């Protein structure tokens, strides 16, 4: 997720030499050029913003656009730098002697799509899989460079169940990265019984080996930061020590555990930033984590009990197979954004009536932030004084960053933002075949019904196509032959992917108006340079969890 396109472009003007290729590959940028020539920067900015800058509106463009008056002089100067960049762009274009068509071949497309794919199959014992989960497929496709989405999956070892989550970062990837590393530990610890917590604490105390809490299922590209692990561990230890002291003696409720873990982690992120760290690298890291933000959509599956904890605008969707074999979608989370009336209502309730008008502007929180709940984003949580103090005492890099120094407009009664999730519990039924967790990059390109159908058909290997009927129409043999050949090609695309998430991304990016994957479109979308990709699509991260209907059916029968 971008901070804003302006500064990034300034940072890497050299890259623009690659742009000429694009003018032939993409029809859309070509029609942008006249606008650029007219130097209507504000319009470009808003177009870009309108296109795909979702979570956090690009500050600079918005300033040019609507908050012009409030912008300090320095910022104003910065705004004009993109113009230079675009001038470069136009010059570079002149160097391209001959227009060349540039398409990725299908293998190239596949290698891009499959670069981040990951699959996990729950191991079977004696030929039997006793888990309600068969396994999961996950994948992500970057639009930002580097990608700001994160994903996590892990099996709880000291309690039952499996955790899966997608995290959509904004204003950098630091917060999403931290949440993806830490949140599941907080959840697992919240779920642990008192005795296990004691055992762990004793082990740490006496320097013995710890009981493993989580077994991670990670793609090689999913990294954990080594430097911060000690810091993170200490925060986590403080948390479980508090839990031990609190010992309520009650059995842990999953819903509460999830809510507590979310809130606690966000609190720790905030505290770590306030306290700082003697190590300058770590000090900068915790500040970056706190000043960036991340949504989180986490699923906890234990037998037939499925809990979804959601903060922000990622979404969980259940794929249900109806009796007639068709697929339908059940959404298991509420988006926390301006489209959710309850959420708008909640925000308004939490602040004085005088702020009602400035709270939500242009479908954004304070006119800036798209998700209404998020981790990090201390800019929307801390008081102005605290923000100023931390920034000023912080390292120079932080001081130089326009974004961190900028205080949101109409900022009177913080906090405006919370990381508290909404938790939905669902009892799995045999007809619930799969769960899709995905960041908004997917949901803004595809309707959930299509997602359910595409994944369902992929997983069952059956491609339900509307049968062709000639009826009374005049169709020639040649036309019919062409139609059938095309349909066959479409079916074969299903079998190209070994990963349901990859398959879904292929559709999300390459779907044409008929709902089928158009290779040419896919190729164009994937060959966009980093600078432009963000205008046409967002980062997409998808986890598809496949359920074991037999086990779920058996659970049900036991209960009957």
């Amino acid at each position, binding site marked *: 997720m971008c901070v804003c396109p302006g500064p990034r472009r300034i940072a890497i003007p050299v890259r623009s030499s690659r742009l000429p290729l694009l003018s032939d590959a993409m029809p859309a940028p070509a029609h942008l050029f006249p606008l650029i020539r007219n130097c209507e920067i504000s319009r470009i900015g808003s177009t870009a913003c309108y296109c795909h800058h979702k979570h956090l509106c690009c500050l600079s463009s918005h300033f040019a656009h609507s908050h012009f008056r409030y912008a300090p002089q320095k910022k104003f100067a910065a705004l004009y730098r993109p113009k230079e960049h675009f001038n470069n762009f136009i010059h570079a274009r002149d160097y391209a002697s001959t227009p060349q068509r540039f398409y990725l071949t299908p293998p190239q497309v596949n290698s891009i799509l499959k670069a981040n794919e990951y699959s996990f199959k729950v191991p079977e014992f004696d030929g039997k899989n006793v888990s309600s989960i068969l396994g999961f497929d996950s994948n992500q496709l970057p639009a930002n460079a580097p990608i700001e989405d994160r994903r996590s999956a892990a099996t709880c070892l000291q309690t039952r169940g499996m955790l899966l989550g997608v995290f959509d970062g904004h204003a950098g990837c630091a917060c999403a990265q931290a949440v993806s590393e830490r949140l599941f530990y907080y959840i697992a610890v919240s779920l642990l019984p008192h005795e296990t917590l004691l055992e762990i604490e004793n082990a740490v105390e006496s320097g013995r080996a710890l009981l493993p809490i989580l077994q991670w299922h990670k793609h090689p590209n999913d990294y954990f930061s080594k430097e911060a692990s000690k810091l993170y561990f200490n925060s986590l230890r403080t948390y479980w020590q508090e839990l031990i002291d609190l010992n309520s003696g009650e059995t842990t409720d999953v819903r509460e555990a999830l809510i507590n873990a979310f809130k606690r982690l966000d609190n720790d992120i905030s505290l770590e930033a306030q306290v700082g760290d003697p190590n300058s690298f770590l000090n900068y890291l915790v500040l970056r984590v706190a000043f960036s933000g991340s949504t989180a959509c986490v699923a906890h599956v234990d037998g037939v009990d499925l809990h979804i904890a959601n903060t922000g605008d990622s979404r969980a969707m259940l794929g249900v197979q109806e009796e007639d074999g068709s697929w339908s979608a059940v959404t298991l989370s509420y988006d926390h954004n301006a489209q959710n009336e309850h959420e708008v209502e909640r925000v308004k309730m939490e602040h004085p009536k005088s702020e009602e008008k400035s709270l939500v502007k242009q479908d954004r929180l304070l006119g800036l932030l798209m998700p209404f709940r998020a981790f990090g984003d201390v800019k929307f949580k801390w008081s102005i004084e605290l923000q100023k103090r931390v920034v000023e005492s912080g390292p120079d890099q932080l001081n130089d960053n326009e974004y961190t120094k900028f205080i949101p407009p109409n900022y009177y009664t913080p906090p405006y933002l919370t990381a508290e999730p909404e938790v939905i519990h669902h009892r799995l039924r045999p007809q619930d075949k799969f769960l899709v967790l995905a960041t908004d990059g997917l949901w803004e390109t595809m309707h959930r019904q299509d997602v359910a159908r595409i994944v369902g058909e992929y997983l069952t290997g059956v491609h339900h*196509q509307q049968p062709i009927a000639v009826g009374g129409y005049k169709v020639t043999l040649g036309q019919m032959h062409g139609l*059938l050949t095309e349909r066959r090609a479409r079916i074969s695309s299903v079998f190209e992917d070994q990963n349901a998430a990859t398959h879904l991304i292929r559709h999300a990016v390459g779907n044409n108006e008929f709902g089928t994957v158009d290779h040419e479109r896919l190729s164009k979308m994937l060959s966009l340079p980093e600078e432009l990709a963000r205008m046409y699509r967002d980062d997409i991260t998808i986890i598809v969890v496949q359920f074991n209907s037999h086990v779920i059916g058996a659970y049900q029968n036991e209960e009957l």
Partner: protein
Amino acid sequence: MFLRLLSDIQWRAAHPKWRRMPGSQRSASTSAEPHPLSLPAQAQVVICGGGIMGTSVAYHLSKMGFKDIVLLEQGRLAAGTTRFCAGIVSTARPMSIELKMAHYSNKLYQQLEQETGVQTGYMKTGSISLAQTQDRLISLKRIASSLNVMGIPCEIISPKKVSQLHPLINIHDLVGAMYVPEDALVSSANVSLALATAASRNGVQIHERTSVSHVTIQKGRVTGVETDRGRIQCEFFVNCAGQWAYELGHSGEEPVHIPVHACEHFYLLTHPLQEPLSNSLPTVVDPDGRIYIRNWQGGILSGGFEKNPKPLFTEGRNQLEIQNLQEDWDHFGPLLSALLRRMPGLEALQIMQLVNCPESFTPDMRCIMGESPTARGYFVLAGMNSAGISYGGGAGKYLAEWIVNGYPSENVWPLDLKRFGTLQSSRTFLRHRVMEVMPLMYDLKVPRWDFQTGRQLRTSPLYDRLDAQGARWMEKHGFERVKYFVPPGSDLLDLDHSKTFYKPDWFDIVGAEVKCCKEAVCVIDMSSFTKFEISSTGDQALENLQYLFSNDLDVPVGHVVHTGMLNEKGGYENDCSIARLSKRSFFMISPTDQQVHCWAWLKNHLPDDSNLVLEDVTWKYTALNLIGPRAVDVLSELSYAPMTAEHFPSLFCKEMSVGYANGIRVMSITHTGEPGFVLYIPIEYALHVYNEVMNMGQKYGIRNAGYYALRSLRIEKFFAFWGQDLDAFTTPMECGREFQVKLDKVHHLLHRVWWESRTGLKGCQPSRWMCLYGAVCSSCNIYSCTSAGC
């Protein structure tokens, strides 16, 4: 459907009963009108099914003088598969009996319009079968030569000639073609109606909208038919119910197993071409493209047999008339591609309809006719494998002859219902098998082809042991038998690539096995052979066997006799070996596929005497055949008994111990003419005896061998195979076996009349089984040497 419309009008015009209802609306009239005739209480023959088969049987029965015939149709005449039939009468059939049926049908349909006055749409167009490969051309040449033997004009033509015969064909990828100028097109529904019209003129009562609920059988004989309109007592019942034949067979208390299963079959109808196609243009069959194309009302009709058929009604939905099934264009896609490749000029031709109709298929791609093995008087004619119109006339004729004379005028064993047992009537088996059979319609028909589905049903206890030693398997009557053993290290072609008309890659492997049989000793598992025991309290067993078999069975206990089971005309119904176990019990060994046929024959000819017991003991014994000069050494070492010729002469049977196992029935016969023994081992001892034999045999160079080796040995010794070289029309005199006919043994003899009429004609008939050495064998040239016979 307009075909249907047309036929209704004509049928009514032809039928005297309907002439009195001018101008009445068709549908209303038939449903509202009470049935013009009430059902008779009694008839000689009741035929169920008013499609091409039922009407053809009725037609031929009435022609042969049967008067008291009732034909029942659950819906309307020619409303089932017959209505949807593409109407191609093609004589290019791979089996000679099918070819004869198709030839007869063609001649019959040609004069049918003249005979009945009903328009049949008969048009002699000829047919062209195209070859895209040299192998295909060879298979066409094989068919062409059998057509020529029958005197049916037929020639192999060049691609250039093809384009002269049919202007639309793209000939660029062709290597040749077969042209059969006398093949024809008909409207199948109208042919059926014409046959019905002629039959009803000859006195056959036809009742539409009458469905048979079940057939009553008492003491193994048909006694009557229960319908929704009452009961009809009858002597003969004919099941011509097409795709409903299976269910009808299972509806009664005593099921009659008719292994048919329906598949969806698609064909395309188009609007006329801009310049309408001539209706005399020949039909085109492109087996490599899996399609057929005929001219149809100025446009074309094109269908095919795809690689991935869609079986239908496995669960047995019994719908009254075939409702229009869903068109499935995606499924038809590959066939459409083949069509446009063959006739690129048709691109702009407008589609009228894609017809989907169920066709019935059988487990071996041959139709089913004949009498039930369990219920006398219950006849079946069904499972036409989508060639109903081609076979209709001939099949009806043969079945009518069967009912009237007791046996048809041709050898129809390849089509006999008794080639199947109950084991082929599992719905799962049928579903899987028909999915293999339907594509086979247009597959290359090479010799020695084995079905791959529905396998491993009946196996010997040694199956796993043999399989681990490299056995390659074939199937006969559901029983897995070893073809040959692939030595370790040698690599054979996979199944698809092993299809050849030339020297197969296993040739040398079998050669080595044969050599070992000749020089040392080999073991062949022969458990599949049919084994019966016949015993009685008194002399009934001997008396009855003497009556049924040609050779003298009154031999000392412990002797084995090779004999034929002859019918009244002296033809071989079975060719078997009989051992006299005691004075009053006999052990009979017959070919594998005789299990049902021989049982039925014996049941029908043995008196109903509780003191005479016939038992099928096939499953009780594992048979190991030790062939070769050293077999005697192996056995004597294992049993510590002298096995030399003076102690154990040829054609002798003794119970003895082999290894630890006692009570092994050892016979000094190998079915090959080579020295050796067959061990009949109670199955629990099978593994032990096999292990002992293999261990002991090591020093004598023992090895496993398969059926191909056995066949090779038999052919060398002029041993005939029943079903292939011998059949119900072959007499002992024609195959040099008159020495096996003993007349003086008893006065009472089934085939005495034949024999006495033949005395003095000794040896004047050519040996029919000599054709074994010709290119094509008489009864079955698809599966050639190995799948027919023992």
